């Protein structure tokens, strides 16, 4: 247990510069806005007093690094400012919407793992066969398929055509779990296709490499059966790689969620960031981006720690 704690602390220490740089990028977004940020934040019809008030509030008259420090200090305490459109606290807006995004992302990740990993294993164990060629082609198709187009096709056929699933909206998972899952199914499928394809490809190539290695050949020569080789040696060696690949998909899922939420009119973090970007509601944009990037970094930390539990060699690195 002590070693685990030490490991987590060491990883956190390594992650610290990354987190600081990431917050710096989020803060700098406002600096990309052409013109005076105070005028931008005050909105189109703001009075001179209002602009001055905002300048004071955000400290735009102070050096950049002081502004950043102030913003970061507030952000650490959970204060991400207020929306320019609704003047609601940004953190409240995010907390209302994030569960919807997490639901479809988690759902999609589960679907992808259940389909993508077996596909990769099947292709790898029959490398060069027709099955392998089929899986590889399907994966290429899945990578190139625009997820929002698939989403539209699913709505057209399964919601409007067959009426199996609701076409739009979301329900809170805590209040109506059944309805919530039903609403999340099509978005999760649309979101999962790219990830399934990616998982199948990566699992395939990782497993092919392991199965082609010297010690597997030795095991085979010693008469160990193919199933024992696959599970006791192949999958076990791939598991660390697999975990890393799964962790990297979180990034992809959040990216995909933006468009998928738009198609299904889901009030999630992705649709919030798109809406806010179009309407120049920068505090909300910064808030969502910050929360998502911190989420991704934390997931990577968890993946890292789990990997070192699975493979002691990783821990030493």
């Amino acid at each position, binding site marked *: 247990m002590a070693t685990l704690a030490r490991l987590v602390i060491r990883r956190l220490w390594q992650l610290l*510069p*990354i*987190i*600081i*740089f*990431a917050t*710096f*990028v*989020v803060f700098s*977004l*406002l600096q*990309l*806005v*052409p013109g005076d940020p105070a005028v931008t934040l005050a909105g189109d019809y703001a009075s001179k007093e209002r602009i001055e008030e905002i300048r004071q509030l955000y400290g735009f008259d102070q050096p950049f690094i002081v502004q950043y420090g102030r913003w970061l200090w507030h952000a650490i305490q959970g204060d991400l400012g207020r929306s320019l459109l609704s003047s609601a606290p940004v953190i409240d807006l995010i907390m209302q919407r994030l569960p919807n995004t997490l639901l479809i992302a988690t759902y999609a990740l589960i679907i992808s793992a259940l389909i993508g990993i077996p596909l990769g294993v099947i292709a790898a164990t029959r490398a060069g066969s027709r099955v392998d060629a089929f899986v590889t082609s399907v994966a*290429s*198709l899945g*990578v*190139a*398929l*625009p997820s*929002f*187009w698939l989403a*539209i*096709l699913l*709505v*057209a056929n399964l919601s*409007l055509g067959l009426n199996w699933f609701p076409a739009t909206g979301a329900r809170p998972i805590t209040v109506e779990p059944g309805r919530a899952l039903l609403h999340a199914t099509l978005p999760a499928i649309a979101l999962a296709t790219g990830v399934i394809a990616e998982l199948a490809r990566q699992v395939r190539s990782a497993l092919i490499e392991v199965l082609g290695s010297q010690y597997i050949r030795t095991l085979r020569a010693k008469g160990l059966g193919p199933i024992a080789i696959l599970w006791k040696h192949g999958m076990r060696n791939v598991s660390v790689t697999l975990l890393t690949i799964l962790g990297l998909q979180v*990034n*992809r*899922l*959040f*990216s*995909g969620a*933006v*468009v998928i939420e*738009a*198609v299904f009119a889901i009030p999630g973090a*992705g649709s919030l*960031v*798109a809406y*806010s*970007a*179009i309407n*120049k509601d*920068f505090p909300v*944009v*910064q808030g*969502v*981006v910050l929360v*998502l*990037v911190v989420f*991704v*970094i934390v997931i*990577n930390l968890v993946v890292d720690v789990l990997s070192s539990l699975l493979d002691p060699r990783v821990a030493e690195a």
Partner: protein
Amino acid sequence: MSSITASPAAARPARKPRSAFMRWVRSDLRAVLSITYLVLLILVAVLAPYIAPYSPTDQNVAELLLPPSAEHWLGTDDLGRDVLSRLIWGAPNSLYASLLAVGVAIVLGVPVGLLIGFLGGWIDDIVSRFIDALLSFPPIVLAIAVTGALGIGLTNAMLSVGFVFAPVLARIVRAQTLVVKNALYVDAARGFGASTRHIIVRHIVPNAIQPVIVQVTLMLAIALLAEASLSFLSLGVQPPAASWGGMLARAYNYIEIAPAQMYAPGMAILLTALAFNALGESMRVALDPTMKRR
């Protein structure tokens, strides 16, 4: 070989890839198909003003949401515009978008990767952490945020996508530079008194360029999908200009009245992304020395 050239190293690369290229074309149907498709697409994009049967922006209230017919092969949209013409005019926008994003990524990412890989030390440490930080952002989310800050529109959207892609290239180039920098033949060149500039231009760039070419081709597909997504969200191509993603957004609004409209733009995006990916994969095989002659 009648004459002895002063630098055989320089003469060789010019000759070898050409025959390797021809071998690849002959043996790789996937590559031939994708190149053919892309050449046709470029032709369509360049010739759009001449081959589009109608103007992509002319509205016609008498012909709203028509199904495919002899006059309008793919029907008309909710403003009575010819869908085929808009599809054709979407090609130049999509290609411009992909090339711009990838171009930005190359211009930003490659020099940074070369520099930090070559210099090493604390500069490399700091910039590498910064690259890690950028790679932690969900790409489309960061691109949307940057686009919102710069102002919406296709060019700004693709500048943002390019900025988001740049760290990927920087990381690849850095890794490749590290390998080459420590290779024996570079040590030898240095021992012969080769300058830093000579080593970078003659040894590091040619060796680092191969994975970059592969990655850049694959990136064209991701950029295309990103453009379609951003245009679908109305952050990219602005109406009335035509874009495949934007066409899908409109078609989705009228999905119950004119369901046929959602197929063509989606197919265009899918096929183009497939072609870029197939080309990238084929180049990976063709350029990777360890995968040759198996």
